[in-house]
């Protein structure tokens, strides 16, 4: 029952979507291709096919140390952000809470503001406090950045829980701690996990805040940037491919956990 006009509009929008998708996924396509074959004058030399760049990557000390830094930063900031998120969400949902709007604003601010503001404010304040830039400052930067995501997911879950759940727990004689441990936490666990996966993905790629607070420490994006400045080798493309695949895998896990459930087909 679609008119010709609608069909034309849909075709045009579909074509546009396809073109933009190709551009958006070009990094992955180029990375995969250039990591295994060489290209001369726009022609792919299939006979040069080799996976050795992936192997040499494992003996590149600077890449490995950047990888371990990234892992340490991601794990530390995600764990701290998750614990803070639970604490803050429990607080803002508590009816005796004061300054609820203010706390929420402070949580969302580093996520909404340009990363340059977060980055340089942490740089300036750590310098004033005499703290040397390094892994600690990167962890702080990533924690405040990913906190908003973790908090939002925990809060949404908490708001969806019936109030009677907590009341029943108190009526049955459970204390505050027992209620948190045995009633609330099991319900919050999956939201915390989803938040953690999203936060991990964000931390893994975070570049703009890290630039300010990293000092002489290198995370994977910073190392990649430094390598790319020099020029492109199959080894860099291999690293690019691995980095992209890891972030896409994280993103897909998060998407799968957040997928709409029990959707009713319309029309």
């Amino acid at each position, binding site marked *: 029952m679609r008119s010709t006009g609608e069909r034309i509009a849909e075709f045009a929008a579909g074509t546009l979507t396809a073109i933009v998708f190709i551009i958006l996924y070009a990094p992955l396509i180029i990375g995969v291709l250039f990591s295994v074959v060489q290209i001369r004058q726009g022609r792919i030399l299939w006979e040069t096919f080799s996976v050795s760049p992936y192997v040499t990557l494992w003996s590149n000390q600077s890449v490995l140390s950047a990888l371990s830094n990234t892992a340490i930063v991601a794990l530390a900031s995600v764990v701290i952000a998750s614990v*803070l998120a639970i604490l803050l969400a429990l607080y803002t949902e508590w009816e*005796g809470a004061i300054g609820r709007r203010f706390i929420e604003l402070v949580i969302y601010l580093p996520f909404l503001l340009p990363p340059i503001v977060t980055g340089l404010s942490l740089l300036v304040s750590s310098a004033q406090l005499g703290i040397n830039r390094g892994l600690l400052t990167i962890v702080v930067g990533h924690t405040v950045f990913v906190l908003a995501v973790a908090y939002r997911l925990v809060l949404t879950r908490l708001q969806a829980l019936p109030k009677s759940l907590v009341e029943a727990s108190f009526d049955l004689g459970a204390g505050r701690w027992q209620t948190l441990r045995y009633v609330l936490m099991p319900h919050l666990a999956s939201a915390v996990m989803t938040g953690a996966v999203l936060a991990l993905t964000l931390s893994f790629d975070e570049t703009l805040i890290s630039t300010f607070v990293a000092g002489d420490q290198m995370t994977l994006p910073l190392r990649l940037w430094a390598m790319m400045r020099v020029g492109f080798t199959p080894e860099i493309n291999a690293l690019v491919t691995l980095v992209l695949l890891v972030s896409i895998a994280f993103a897909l896990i998060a998407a799968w956990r957040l997928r709409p459930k029990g959707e009713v087909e319309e029309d």
Partner: protein
Amino acid sequence: MAGRLSRWLVFAGVAAIPLLLVVAPIGTFLAISMFRAEKHIMNYTPTVANYAEFFGNWTYFGTYLGTILLCFQVMALSILIGYPMAWFIWRQKGSRRYYLLLLAVVPLFMSYIVKLYTLRSMLGLNGLISQMLIGIGILEKPSQIFLFNQRAVLITMAVIYMPFVILPIFLALERIPRSLLQASFDLGASGWDTFRRIVLPLSLPGTIAGALFTFVLALGDFITPQMVGGTTGFTIGRVIYSQFGLAYNWPFGAAMAAVLFLTALAGIVLAGIAMSRQKI
């Protein structure tokens, strides 16, 4: 109910960490902007000299205004391309719609630096864009016109921030009840009329919010202009970053960042207002 004092104590305990990690650093950099760096030595007498220098020197203030203009262009270009994409995805049915949305959102999580380098090589002398234009006969020989200028920054930012526009527009479209579209169809409205009088007005708040987020993202980006902007693609983010690097004048950089901070805050507040106007 807990007493007033104990409520304040709990507040202090809970708020301590966010205050320490977010509010205190922002406060510190705002405070630093009121001092002067004289030959790399800090002079802690409060002054507005940094702000006077920023607003009085066209090199800086002009760059700031140019950045605002660039951000509006990024916003416009993103909507022009992102709206039809979100609309197309929204028109699909069932799981196909979900997978297309996923395809649109996943690039958000792909490495920022890698995206920049790929776009740079595509826009470059022997890049895809040049080759395509030669292919269809618009250009005669490879051209550098797409790289190392403001246009390159505009295109690159629009591409990188595209998912940020598509997602809110899609979410706004998805909230429109099917019954409204059905009613419009039953009353004899054409597809175009339904779009113009129902779909577009109802999705406008989400679209504006998405556009403003893109604006804020583009505003503070300092790596994109550095990578594809060359000497003419200077933005305020890049100028601020240089004050914390080579130029090494933290108070002056902090003053410019304070202006950027307020501009971004205005964008965020406007986006919040737009979202609260969402009628459905």
